[in-house]
């Protein structure tokens, strides 16, 4: 199937951009850096669309089933015979789908940044980092080898680190980037060990082989991994759970989500790309990639389900209380990803019961578009208002009509109002949940309602609630934006910032109609889905009610919302404080690990281990002080010792050792 080899160019072009900009960007290319990056990415985007066309509509199907095609396999690092990291390219429905998503969203962000980041000092660096991220993300998508996934996993993490800390002289940004990296790193450790387990029992790191071996119930590998157990759980469960922990870390699942809200310190387009559309769904993608194996183990799937559901509702509740618009979006992202997770969790492999899988992927697909749209919209707003806080906004609908419309569409989409994209995908998820697990269904429904509530809270707070022009932009300015950004004359900013909004808005409306179930399913076999109107009533109505509630609270300035907040009282403050998860983490690290592990060890090293060596030296010196009396300087004592020596020797050899 080497006729897919040209896929190689899709990640390689961004890589090239990264290298070029990274080496020469600062000095020579800072002018055209943006264009360069955008151009190369445009090419990749076109390529990936070509791939999608070829795969989905030309030769992807073999007798009606989409094939897994390994387009490239190169042994990169051989650990031992047939245990090796092979750099490969895998082509199957989800990877192609992700290709399209990543490239197009990334392209949008590239274009948008041309305006948003204009005049930044490290413009070229910014674009080189963007390219690096895109490269790593694409590499992750195309990985045919689980260790390759891990590699690009790390690379994605580091490029996100670099982008979050883009405003490196801003301590909060640095702190956020550190947090993001370390938390995900912690999760990656789980991933790594999971890989070790699976690789050890599977005897390979190749995903295809792993799936093949672990899904055939009587293969030696499957038997060995299921028979081996630790703490009552089979090794399979352990391996998968650990892998899932890795995914949960990247996808900001509870309780590893804490890095995501802080990650909003990065430039807004970056948040749109990394922390809304692409990187954060890597976890979902990972689970989907390994799904056949997951489907062999009930426990692991349940964990996925409940973690997903918990995160969904948890994040939604918090989102209702936040006032920083990017944070609201961040939590909504988390909640949506929770959706995708539990959709996977409740799914089965193949056939009708594989609906959840399809739904999850579908939601991933649609979510990418409207969520990035939301972020870019928020970006425009911030770009104009120079603040993230709701209270500095309001009544912007007149000042920035395009953004307003786009944002509205996105909100409707995420709220799941037909015929916007979100509706279809969410519908599938709810259906699946309804069939599989009523509890989850309930949670999902509740979350859906919350979602539409907080989204419109956001919407109204930004675009209504106050009279036009009354908003103060004298509020705390981004110290990262220098003067030429501060004036309002540019309104919504240049066309390069409007264009992506428009395109994405169209997508947010359109992508719902993609015949997804025909293309992306767990077993590659087409799946018949039908929008059941009766079923859809409940969620839609709920959403609409929530929207009305939000309108009632926030459309015009009033204190109803505060009343409600007070009514909730403690619960509200808890939610506002994000349920104190951060505090717990800080307590563990700052109050337990540092003082009770780090410092003692450091102390012990100085005083005990090294102290022991010092002690040896000191003792020697001391002894030599003590015995210096022997050398009394009196010749008679010398004679005495002489005589004593003879005596000792004689005793030794005449009586003891004779």
């Amino acid at each position: 199937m080497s006729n897919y080899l040209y896929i190689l160019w899709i990640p390689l072009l961004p890589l090239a951009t990264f290298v070029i900009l990274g080496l020469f960007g600062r000095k020579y290319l800072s002018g055209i850096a943006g264009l360069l990056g955008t151009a190369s990415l445009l090419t990749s985007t076109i390529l990936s669309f070509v791939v999608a066309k070829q795969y989905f509509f030309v030769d992807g199907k073999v007798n009606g089933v989409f094939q897994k095609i390994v387009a490239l396999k190169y042994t990169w690092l051989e650990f031992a015979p047939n245990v090796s990291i092979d750099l490969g390219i895998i082509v199957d429905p989800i990877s192609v789908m992700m290709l399209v998503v990543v490239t197009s969203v990334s392209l949008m962000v590239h274009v948008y940044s041309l305006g948003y980041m204009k005049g930044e000092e490290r413009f070229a660096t910014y674009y080189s980092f963007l390219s690096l991220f895109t490269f790593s993300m694409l590499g992750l998508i195309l990985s045919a080898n689980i260790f390759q996934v891990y590699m690009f996993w790390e690379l994605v993490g580091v490029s996100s680190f670099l982008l979050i800390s883009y405003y490196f002289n801003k301590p909060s940004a640095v702190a956020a980037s550190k947090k993001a990296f370390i938390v995900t790193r912690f999760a990656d450790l789980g991933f790594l060990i999971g890989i070790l387990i699976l690789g050890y029992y599977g005897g390979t790191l190749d995903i295809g082989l792993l799936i093949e071996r672990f899904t055939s119930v009587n293969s030696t590998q499957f038997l060995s991994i299921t028979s081996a157990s630790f703490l009552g759980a089979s090794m399979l469960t352990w391996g998968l759970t650990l892998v899932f922990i890795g995914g949960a870390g990247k996808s900001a699942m509870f309780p590893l989500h804490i890095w995501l809200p802080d990650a909003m310190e990065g430039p807004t387009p970056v948040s749109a790309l990394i922390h809304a559309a692409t990187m954060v769904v890597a976890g979902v993608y990972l689970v989907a990639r390994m799904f056949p194996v997951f489907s062999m183990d009930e426990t692991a799937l349940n964990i996925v389900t409940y973690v997903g559901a918990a995160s969904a509702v948890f994040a939604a509740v918090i989102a209702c209380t936040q006032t920083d618009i990017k944070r609201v979006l961040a939590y909504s992202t988390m909640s949506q990803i929770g959706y995708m997770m539990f959709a996977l969790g409740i799914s089965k492999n193949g056939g009708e019961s594989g609906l959840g899988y399809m739904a999850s992927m579908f939601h991933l697909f649609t979510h990418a578009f409207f969520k990035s749209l939301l972020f870019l919209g928020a970006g425009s707003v911030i770009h104009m208002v120079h603040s993230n806080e709701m209270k500095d906004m309001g009544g912007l609908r007149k000042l920035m009509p395009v953004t307003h419309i786009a944002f509205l569409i996105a909100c409707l989409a995420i709220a799941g109002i037909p015929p916007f994209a979100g509706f279809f995908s969410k519908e599938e998820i709810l259906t699946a949940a309804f069939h599989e697990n009523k509890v989850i269904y309930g949670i999902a429904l509740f979350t859906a309602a919350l979602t539409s509530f907080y989204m419109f809270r956001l919407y109204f707070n930004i675009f209504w609630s106050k009279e036009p022009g009354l908003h103060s932009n004298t509020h705390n300015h981004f110290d990262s934006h220098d003067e030429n950004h501060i004036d309002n004359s540019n309104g919504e900013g240049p066309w390069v910032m409007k264009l992506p909004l428009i395109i994405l808005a169209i997508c947010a409306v359109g992508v719902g109609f993609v015949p997804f179930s025909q293309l992306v399913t767990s077993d590659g076999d087409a799946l018949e889905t039908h929008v059941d109107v009766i079923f859809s009533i409940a969620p839609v109505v709920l959403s609409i009610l929530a929207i009305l509630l939000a309108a009632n609270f926030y459309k015009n300035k009033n204190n109803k919302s505060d009343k409600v907040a007070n009514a909730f009282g403690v619960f509200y403050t808890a939610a506002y404080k994000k349920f104190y998860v951060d505090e717990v983490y800080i307590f563990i690290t700052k109050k337990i690990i540092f003082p009770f592990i780090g410092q003692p060890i450091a102390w012990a090293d100085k005083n005990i281990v090294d102290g022991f060596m010092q002690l040896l030296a000191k003792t020697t010196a001391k002894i030599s002080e003590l015995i210096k009396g022997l050398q009394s300087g009196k010749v008679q004592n010398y004679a005495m010792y002489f005589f004593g020596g003879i005596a000792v020797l004689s005793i030794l050899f005449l009586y003891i050792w004779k």
Partner: protein
Amino acid sequence: MQEIPLSQILFVSTFLFFIGMYGLLTRRNLITMLMSIELMLNSVNINFVAFNKYLFPDNLDGLFFTLFIITIAAAEAAVAIAIIINLYRSHNSIDVDDANEMKY
């Protein structure tokens, strides 16, 4: 007249030796110490002669040895006394305990 047994002679010599050592260890006067060393040497001489006479009368190794010891002892004493004189010049005393600048 009957012979004195070897053991008694050896006893005398050993006794002499330890007298010498005692003197060496207790006396403070360098000359006296030197004399006590002479005592020790002489006890050794007695040993040699006695052994030679009683045990191995057929060759004269012991006697020769004795002669040489006496000669060398003389030489030693000569040098030693020279040194002591010099010491007296520098320290104005021949008390051994006065000469212990160098220690430890």
